[in-house]
C-alpha cells in the first residue's frame, strides 16, 4: 500500500514535470510576459472581488441566522443581563455596521476602480477634513464603549456589600473541582496547602475552628436563586479558570492567591429547562446526540475550566444546580460538615 502511494507520487511528479516542459516550451515560442497584469485581468479580478463580497456577506448572515440559536441563552444572572445588553448594543450599533460598511466600501471601490484600458487615477494625496472626521468619529464611538464598559465593570467587580449572601469557594486541581460552602457561621476556614492529604483534599487548616462547619461537595453543587453568590477561587497546582458561561462569570484560579467573583442567579435550573429558547437548543443538542447514539440530556448549568491546565483540561467540569431557596435549604441540610467527615475518616 505504502509502495503504491509512493509510486503514485513519483508518477505525479514526473507527469507534472513533463507538463511544465510543454508550458515552458510554448511560452518560449510566444515570448509572452505572463506576469503582466492586463486590463482583462483587472476586469475579471474586480468582478470576482465584488462577487466575493456578496458571498462573504451572505455567509455572514447565513451564519448569524443559523448559529445564533446555538449561542448561550440569555444570561441567568442579574449582572449578566447587563453584559448581554451591552454586548448587543456594541455589536448591533458599532461592530457589525463597521464591519459591513467598511468591507463594502473596500470591495466596491476595488470593483469600481479596477484598471480598465481607459481608467485614470486621480492624484489625491490627502484631505485634512476627511482625516479629521475619521479620527473624531471613532473617538466618540469609543468613548461610548469605554464609559458603559467601565460603569458595568466597576459594578461587577466591586466588593460585595450585601449581608445576606452565600459564600462558596471553588477549589481547582488537575482535573476536577471542589465546592466548599462556608457553613452556618458564614465564614470559610483558613487553609494550608501543606496539610493536603487523602482525607483533607482541599488543604483545610485543621487548627482553624471556623472551618469545622464548612461543607465540601464534588461533581455537583447547588446555589439558591435570587441571592448573592460570592465565589472565592483557589488552585492546588496550576492555573485554572472557573468559567460559568450561563452566568457570564469567569475568574482564574491562581495558586498562592484567592480570587473572587460575585453574581446573583435569577433563574433556577427548572425554570431554564422550561425556557422556550433553551428547549429548542436542547432539542438540537439531543438530535445530534441521537446521531452519535448517546442518551438525550436535559439542560444543566455547568462550571468549566477555561485555562489550559494539562492533559484532561477538556474534561474538567462540575454540574451546578440553581434551586429555589426552599430546595436549596433542604439540600444543604443534608450535606455533612468537614468536621464530621474528617472524624469519620480518622475513625475508620
Amino acid at each position, binding site marked *: 500500500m505504502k509502495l503504491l502511494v509512493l509510486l503514485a507520487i513519483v508518477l505525479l511528479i514526473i507527469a507534472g514535470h513533463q507538463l511544465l516542459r510543454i508550458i*515552458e516550451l510554448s511560452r518560449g515560442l510566444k515570448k509572452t510576459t505572463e506576469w503582466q497584469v492586463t486590463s482583462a485581468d483587472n476586469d475579471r479580478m474586480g468582478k470576482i472581488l465584488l462577487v466575493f463580497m456578496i458571498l462573504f456577506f451572505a*455567509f455572514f448572515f447565513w451564519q448569524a441566522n443559523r448559529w445564533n440559536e446555538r449561542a448561550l441563552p440569555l444570561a441567568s444572572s442579574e449582572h*449578566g443581563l447587563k*453584559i448581554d445588553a451591552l454586548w448587543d448594543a456594541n455589536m448591533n450599533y458599532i461592530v457589525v455596521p463597521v464591519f459591513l460598511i*467598511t468591507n463594502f466600501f473596500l470591495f466596491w471601490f476595488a470593483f469600481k*476602480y479596477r484598471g480598465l484600458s481607459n481608467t485614470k487615477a486621480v*492624484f*489625491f494625496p490627502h484631505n485634512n477634513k476627511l482625516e479629521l472626521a475619521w479620527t473624531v468619529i471613532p*473617538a466618540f464611538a469609543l468613548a461610548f464603549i469605554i464609559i458603559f464598559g467601565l460603569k458595568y465593570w466597576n459594578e461587577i467587580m466591586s466588593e460585595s456589600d450585601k449581608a445576606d449572601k452565600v459564600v462558596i469557594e471553588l477549589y481547582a486541581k488537575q482535573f476536577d473541582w471542589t465546592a466548599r460552602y462556608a457553613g452556618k457561621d458564614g465564614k470559610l476556614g483558613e487553609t494550608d496547602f501543606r496539610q493536603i492529604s487523602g482525607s483533607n483534599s482541599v488543604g483545610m487548616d485543621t487548627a482553624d475552628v471556623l472551618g469545622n462547619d464548612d461543607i465540601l461537595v464534588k461533581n455537583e453543587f447547588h446555589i439558591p436563586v435570587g441571592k448573592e453568590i460570592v465565589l472565592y477561587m483557589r488552585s492546588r497546582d496550576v492555573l485554572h479558570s472557573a468559567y460559568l458561561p450561563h452566568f457570564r462569570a469567569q475568574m482564574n484560579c491562581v495558586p498562592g492567591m484567592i480570587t473572587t467573583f460575585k453574581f446573583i442567579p435569577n433563574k433556577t435550573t427548572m425554570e431554564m429547562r422550561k425556557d422556550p429558547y433553551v428547549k429548542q437548543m436542547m432539542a438540537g443538542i439531543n438530535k445530534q446526540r441521537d446521531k452519535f447514539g448517546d442518551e438525550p440530556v436535559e439542560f444543566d448549568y455547568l462550571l468549566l475550566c477555561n485555562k489550559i491546565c494539562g492533559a484532561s483540561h477538556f474534561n474538567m467540569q462540575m454540574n451546578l444546580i440553581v434551586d429555589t431557596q426552599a430546595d436549596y435549604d433542604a439540600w444543604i441540610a443534608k450535606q455533612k460538615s468537614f468536621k464530621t467527615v474528617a472524624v469519620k475518616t480518622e475513625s475508620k
Partner: protein
Amino acid sequence: MGSVTNSALEKEHLVHHDHVHHDDDHEESFITKYVFSQDHKTISRQFLITAVIMAVVAMTMSVIFRMQLAWPGEKFAFVNALLGDKWAKDGILDPNMYLALVTIHGTIMVFFVLTGGLSGTFSNLLIPYQVGARDMASGFLNMLSYWFFFLSTCIMLGSCFIDDGPASAGWTIYPPLSAVPQAIPGSKLGMTMWLISMTIFVVSSLLGSLNYIITVFNLRTKGMTMTRLPLTVWAFLITAILGVLSFPVLVSCVALLIMDRSFGTSFYLSDIYIGGRPLDNVGGSPILFEHLFWFLGHPEVYIVLLPALGITSEIIATNSRKPIFGYRAMIGSILAIGFLSFIVWGHHMYMTGMNPFLGSVFVFTTLLIAIPSAVKAFNYITTLWKGNLQFTPAMLFSIGLVSSFITGGVTGIILADSTLDINVHDTYFVVAHFHIVMGLSAIFGMFAGVYHWFPKLFLRMMNKKLGYVHFWFTLVCAYGTFFPQHFLGLAGVPRRYYTNSNFPMFDNLVDINEICTISAIIGALAQGIFLFNFFYSMFRGEKAPQNPWNSNTLEWTTPVANTHGNWPGALPTVHRWPYDYSKPGKEKDFVPQTVPLEEGEIDGGGH
C-alpha cells in the same frame, strides 16, 4: 545626520564597494556567498526560506489538531504516520500531543514565521534598498542575526522529537504548568528547549532590530529625509524599536522561569501541591509572569502586524497608481500604535485576578489604539477610491489584508472591553479574533510582499495565474476556517480543549467545527500552489525586468542582478517622496524618487 557624514559614508562605501567587486570576481566562495553571507539580500532570502519551511510545519500541525476537533476519536493513518505510535496510536491523537501541537503551532507562527520571517525577510531586503544604502549598517551582525534565528529554529524543531514531547503549556507558557514538570510531560525537557530556543531567538531579533534602526537613521542616501521614506521603512523602523524595547523583557521573564524550573527559586510559584507532595516554593506569583510575558506579548502583536501594514501601504499605492492617502497620518498612526502598544498589555489579563481597577486603565488605553488603526483602514480604502487598480496577486493579497484587518479588528473592540471580555475570554471568540488579525492579515501581508518583491529577491517573476488561484483559495478558506469560530465562542466553547465532546452543551456545534476543519484542510492544500510557484519561479520563472510594477521607490533603480553594494555606480540621490503616482502634468503615471523636482513643483503630495 549632516550631509558631511553622509558623503563621508558614501566615500567609504565606494572604496568598500570596489573591494567587494574584486571579491565577487575572484575570491568569494560558495560558503561566504550563500551560507555565511553578510549581504542583506542573501540574508533576506535565508530568512524567507526558513520561514516558509517553518510555516509548512506549523500549518501541518494545525491540520492535525483541527481534524481532531472536527472528528474526535476518528482514526487517521496519516496522523499516525507523522506522529508515530506513541503520540497517535492507531491514528488517534494523544491529548498531551494535542496540547503540544497547539503550543508549537502558536510559537512557530507568532515568532518564527511572523516575527523572524516577516521582519527578517522584508526589513533586510527593503531597508537598505529603499533608503538607498549599500547594505545594513553591520553586515556581520546581520549574518549573526540569521544564524541565531536558524539555531533557535533547530532547537524548537528538535524539541518535537524528544521522548516526553515538546512544550505543551500553550504558546503563552503560563507557569506553574510550564514550571512544574509533574504537571504535564511537555514541561520536562521540551520546555527547557523551548526556553533556550526563545532566548536565542531574542538574541537574533535584537541583533536584527538594532541593525535596522541604525541603518534607517544613519545610512539614508542624499535627499532621503525621514518624510520621504516609504511607509514600509517607517513600519520596519517602528517594528524594530518595539522589538528592542520589548523582547528583552521576554528574556527576563524566561530567565526567571528557568530559575524557577532548575534552581529552586519561587518567582512564579507559591502554595503548590502536586505529584502527591507540597512544593517548597512559596511567595511567588504567576501573575508576575503574565505581566512580564504580555509586556512583550502585546507589542509583539504589532511587531507582527506593522510590517504587514507597511508592505501593504506600498503595494496598494503602487497598484492603485495613486499616492497613499494621508502619508503623514499614516506615519502618525504607526507612531501612535507603536507607543500605545506598550500600555495595553493588561487587556490579556482582565480575568487573571489582577486588580480590577488596573483592568479599567487598560480598557481605556486599549480602546485608544482603535483610533490609529481605524485611520489606517480608512486611508487604505480612500487610496483605492478613484484609482486605476492593477490586480497583481500582491495587490489582491493587500486588499485581503485590509478586509481581514477590519474584520478581525472590530471584534477587538469587544475583547478590549473588560465587561464584555468576562464571558468570551479564552473562548473561540478570541481564537477567531486573533487568527483573523494575525493568521489572515499578517500572513496576507507576507504573501503580498513575496509576490511583489520576488523580482528583487530572486530576480525572476512568479506566475500570475497560479498567484490568482492561490489568493482565492486562501482568502475563501481562511475566512471559512476562522469566521465560524466566533459562533463557537458565543456558545461558550473554551480554547485548547482536546475535544468538545465531553460536554453535552457543545454537541450541537459539531457541524461548525467540521466547516472550520474542512476549510482549513483545503486552505492548507492550496498552499501547495504557492509553494510550487515559489520554488519553481525561483529557478525557472520568467526573468524580471528592472521595474516590473512601475514603482517609484529606490529598489527598482538597482540592476537585475545580485550586485554586492546594490548600485554599481554612485548611490542614487532622492528628490521627492515615494508616492508621486498619476501626478498631474507628468508624462507617465509614476515618477521615481530619483527624478529631480521640476521648477515650482512641490514635493510630498502638493500640486
